């Protein structure tokens, strides 16, 4: 199924002003500043993503954070707007998991496997890394900005097959 990409005029206005887009009712408050704009970063064009495309953005976004190719991250579960993704741990091949949701042009995530419960929180606090995405035709660009200012951008082609995952 091809994703239906619709421009959301209202959300565009909000995000353009540096405000986070509205959140799902059950999601924690987003306290992070807007994604830092970098030359290499994608444009902050907010879009409404199909369910499948949300999964793709989550896979790519979480993959960027954990050093995994998006294709190696799989969608394990969906509960409303929150998507659970998993990937194989380096070293011993165990499964690592995180929850993810799309907020405007940001990919927000919450690790699920940290041994200290407090570390399993939504990564949306000031000082947390920021992951943004943009979709240009069939190219999904994900940008990861770390607190130290380094930014990495990865782009991948979104195929029909991928969207269905």
């Amino acid at each position, binding site marked *: 199924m091809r994703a239906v990409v619709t421009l959301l005029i209202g959300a565009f206005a909000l995000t353009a002003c540096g405000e986070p887009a509205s959140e799902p009712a059950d999601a924690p408050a987003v306290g992070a500043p807007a994604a830092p704009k970098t030359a290499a970063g994608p444009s902050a064009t907010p879009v409404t993503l199909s369910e499948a495309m949300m999964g793709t953005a989550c896979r790519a976004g979480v993959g*960027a*954070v*954990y*050093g*995994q190719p998006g294709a190696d991250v799989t969608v394990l579960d969906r509960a409303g707007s929150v998507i659970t993704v*998993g990937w*194989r*741990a*380096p*070293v*011993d*091949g*165990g*499964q*690592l998991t995180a929850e993810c949701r799309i907020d405007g042009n940001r990919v927000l995530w919450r*690790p*699920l*496997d*940290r*041994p200290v*419960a407090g*570390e399993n929180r939504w*990564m949306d606090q000031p000082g*947390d*890394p920021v992951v943004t995405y943009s979709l240009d035709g069939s190219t999904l660009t994900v940008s*990861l900005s*770390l*607190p*130290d200012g380094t930014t990495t951008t990865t782009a991948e082609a979104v195929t029909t097959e991928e969207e269905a995952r």
Partner: protein
Amino acid sequence: MPVAKVNGVDVEFEPGMTVLQVAERAGEEIPRFCYHERLSIAGNCRMCLVEVKPGPPKPQASCALPAADGQEIFTDTPMVRKAREGVMEFLLINHPLDCPICDQGGECDLQDQAMGYGRDGSRYAENKRAVEEKHMGPTIKTYMTRCIQCTRCVRFITEVAGVPDIGMISRGESAEITTYLESSVNSELSGNVNDLCPVGALTHRPWAFHYRPWELKKTETIDVMDALGSNIRADARGSEVMRVLPRVHEGINEEWLSDKSRYVVDGLTTRRLDRPFVRENGKLRAASWDEALGVVADRLKAASADLVGVVAGDLQDAESMKAALDLFRALGSAHTDCRQDGSPLGGDTREGWLFNSGLAGIEAADAVLIVGADPRVEAPLLNTRLRKIWLSGQAEVALIGEQVDLSYDYNWLGTGSKTLSKLPKAATDMLSRAERPAIIVGAGALAGETGPAVLNALGALAKKYGVIADGWNGFNVLHTAASRVGGLDMGFVPGEGGLSATDMVKKGQLDVLFLLGADEIDASASGAFTVYLGSHGDRGAHGADVILPGAAYTEKSGLYVNTEGRVQMAERVVFPKGQAKEDWAILRALSERVGHTLPYDTLDQLRGKLMADHPTFGRIDYLAPAAAFDPSKLGVKGDLGDVAFASPIRDPYLSNPIARASATMAELSAQRIAPVAMAAE
């Protein structure tokens, strides 16, 4: 049986043996570098040269030469000696001979064999080649100029660990051992390559330049980082355990050890509880033993018997659990539990909670169904055995649970209880085809409310497909806690009307909660007066009102029962830290103060009582042949629901208080999560 002559002496041998093995059988020592009993034969170091007749008039590599009937083998002729000297001279041409600054010095095969079989000088005056150091991860320190290209490391990591991360590039004088793009070795068994390396090319990074081997006091003991009870040797200098190495135990760990068991030792020196603490006005302050025990005793005496309870942790020895169980039963409490994870295991049938086929015995299985376990993470050295039978083509493996990388192929059937309730045809076919089918049940399948129903369903499955048949018991529970089987064997479960561990920590259930090294259960909501007896300032100690400093596993002699039901004795390597005492002795002192003096004054007396009450503890290192039992009676029949099975070990490198105190484990955990994420979290 065929017969060969070794140095003139007749020796019988089994067909298929090599000349080196036959010579060893005759008691002759053959020097070797590349040959290793548990790895494939490479035949590339040429150190094992012998003279063989009939055959060409030249020395031959005995490790790669099949023995034959009527063969004459000579291991110590002038030709052999000269050939060995020549090989040794070649090996040393490019070796830096830096033994005084090499961590392998004193326990190096090259050093020893150069002394035994080498020349006393070198004729090589040219420049030696130098090879750059490689990055291989937090466990392996490389000094590749020392490498003699034996390829033991390559063969271990490919064949046993199942991760083809190390390889040799280039050839001739340019040959180098490296990892792909110098990435870390992605294996939970990586430390074994350091043991295998016959020279100082690969050494243990966490212990680099920390000791010289001859300074260390060596104690043979038992590992507690998982429920396998791997046999280890802990080497100490003064009061510090400097390193842990594997000992050979064919029934358990063969001669390997997981990185966690090996490199966790730095956690034994940090975050230690070395004196008693008492909470006053919300803050913990140091106290004397007398005061701390007095406070605990007063609370226990003041509380009603049905409002005190004890939870035993995952690293506890059997003796301290026995003392705690006796004490709380004497107090009149039925609230005793060793199952921090809420598992439903326990009861009358011991086989219902054992790994009945035995760890070595699993190699006889021809079909293995893994349910709710990740053996690679939970028990790496069981996983190597599963890999072995998969590799030989002898067994099919199927898995219900998280789709993880086990280092071998398996048939993934589904994520959880739904798959179990309606087993796919592939699984039923596999089990009915098999002559010796095995089911491995992990804690991930048994946790939560559906645990008893899942256990019951697995029991019924085992019965239906003949998992327990004449001479074969393939019903295998894989525990993750070293203390668990010992606890279950002695009945450290709730007595009649008693609360389970998960209920004990609920708000308002108890007045006094005693955590015996229990760090993996969240007692913060309980509201009870909490006493923590343990070795590390970890989760259990943080919320405690009184802390009683105990001994870590290397600081006490204790019995542990592994997942297959084998009782083993750990020995004291060093003394407990500061004012800390052995756990059983603390409980004995406490019992006197609460007016229920435990009937043993020494550890031997306590063991005597334990063995009298539970005879299984009386046979050390004995693996009883698994008795047949009716598995369909396990658990409680009920709705399996729709629950995804997930291993309870989310991060094996941070799964207990000692591991969480270890800098090396933190590094391994970071590598497991990936560097980007560490910056993120």
